[in-house]
């Protein structure tokens, strides 16, 4: 991935933060009618999800390939077979139509690979799943480098740069909570 692509992605994330702050200011304005406030809340949740998902994404990629401990590999990868199987599943779910986020998620008793449509983080978190791996599959994440039809190649490439150390820490935090 080029610096051009990555820097543009950071600017996108920064805009989401600016949007969230602007909406928070708007909500504090008493002269905004109640019905409009509901719509602003909806939009602010959207921006908040965008921010959180981007942070999770940037945190879990590393130019160096970081592998997990054997203990983690036994626990998690055994549910899928091996780490490669998880990587392949991430590529498979990213083929879903539209834009969103491919990810590995864990609940108290299960681990799944799933696709979040749009920015609907609630679709997994409401079901009790917390993120272990998050990969941005919106077009802004890959079109500059991989072209409009390059999503599969992009996700395949990115799975080689997952920081499994971060993934393992997230898993341990979920277990100890």
């Amino acid at each position, binding site marked *: 991935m080029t610096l051009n692509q990555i820097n*543009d*992605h950071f*600017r*996108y994330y920064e*805009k989401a933060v600016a*949007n969230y702050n602007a909406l928070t200011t708007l909500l504090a304005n008493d002269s905004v009618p109640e019905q409009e406030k509901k719509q602003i809340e909806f*939009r602010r949740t*959207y*921006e908040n999800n965008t921010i959180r998902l981007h942070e999770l994404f940037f945190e879990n990629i590393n130019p160096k390939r970081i592998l997990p401990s054997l203990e983690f590999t036994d626990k998690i990868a055994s549910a899928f077979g091996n780490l490669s199987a998880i990587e392949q599943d991430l590529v498979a779910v990213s083929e879903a*139509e*539209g*834009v969103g986020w491919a990810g590995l998620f864990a609940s108290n008793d299960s681990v799944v690979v799933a696709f979040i449509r*749009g*920015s609907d983080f609630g679709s997994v978190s409401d079901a009790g799943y917390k993120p272990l791996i998050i990969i941005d599959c*919106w*077009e*802004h994440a890959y*079109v*500059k480098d991989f*072209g*409009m*039809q390059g999503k599969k190649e992009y996700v395949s490439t990115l799975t080689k740069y997952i920081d499994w150390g971060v993934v393992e820490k997230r898993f341990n935090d979920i277990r100890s909570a």
Partner: protein
Amino acid sequence: MHILVVLALLSSSRCSFHPFSGPLKNASPKRPVGTYKLSPQEYSVNETLVDWVTKNNFPGISNKMMVEHVDLYRGYVKNANTLLANMAKSSIDSVMKLELGRRFGFEANGVHLHELFFSNLHPSPASPSENLVSVISDEFGSFNKFLERIQIIGGTRGTGWVTMTLDKSLNRLILNWVDEHQDGQSIGDVILAVDCWEHAYIKDYKSTARGDYLQNLVKIIDWEVVERRLKAAM
């Protein structure tokens, strides 16, 4: 006397009752229906349209990006046909068929909206006719306010389209946001389609610069095509 006055008022007023609000009169379950037939086709790439957008230079959209955009459109045609074929297969599980049906709206509308979009672009469009300006101004205040409104709605968070449709039950032009290709479509003939997916601008603009793309886009809308669609829909 009062009753007669009320009845007279009712008959002379321009009430816009829904055509199906009253009981059906003279309905006959045995009413004969003439035979008719459909000639079903598959989706196909409109190569004339492809030539139009790839062999002309559209200010604000690089040729390189346009060529890639056309390839994406070809993908939608292929996917829509694949889904049509799979949905017809008896060997596919019924639950899968339902989910293929869900996806079909996405792919099929992807085909239609891209065709509508490509065909309402012009490298150097003529100014809109006085009649079109007047009709649009009636709804949006002025033509410039209408162009601003396209750009404002085009900035909606998410990925999708700005479409303008003619709602015949209201006799109004409806300009609204469509999520992806299929969520939030207003019912009516599409008069104008503007692609606001990131793929439509991100090779030429920064990811945060959809506004710049739209500012240029409204300058290359073919108002003759828009007017032709409106007249056909009326």
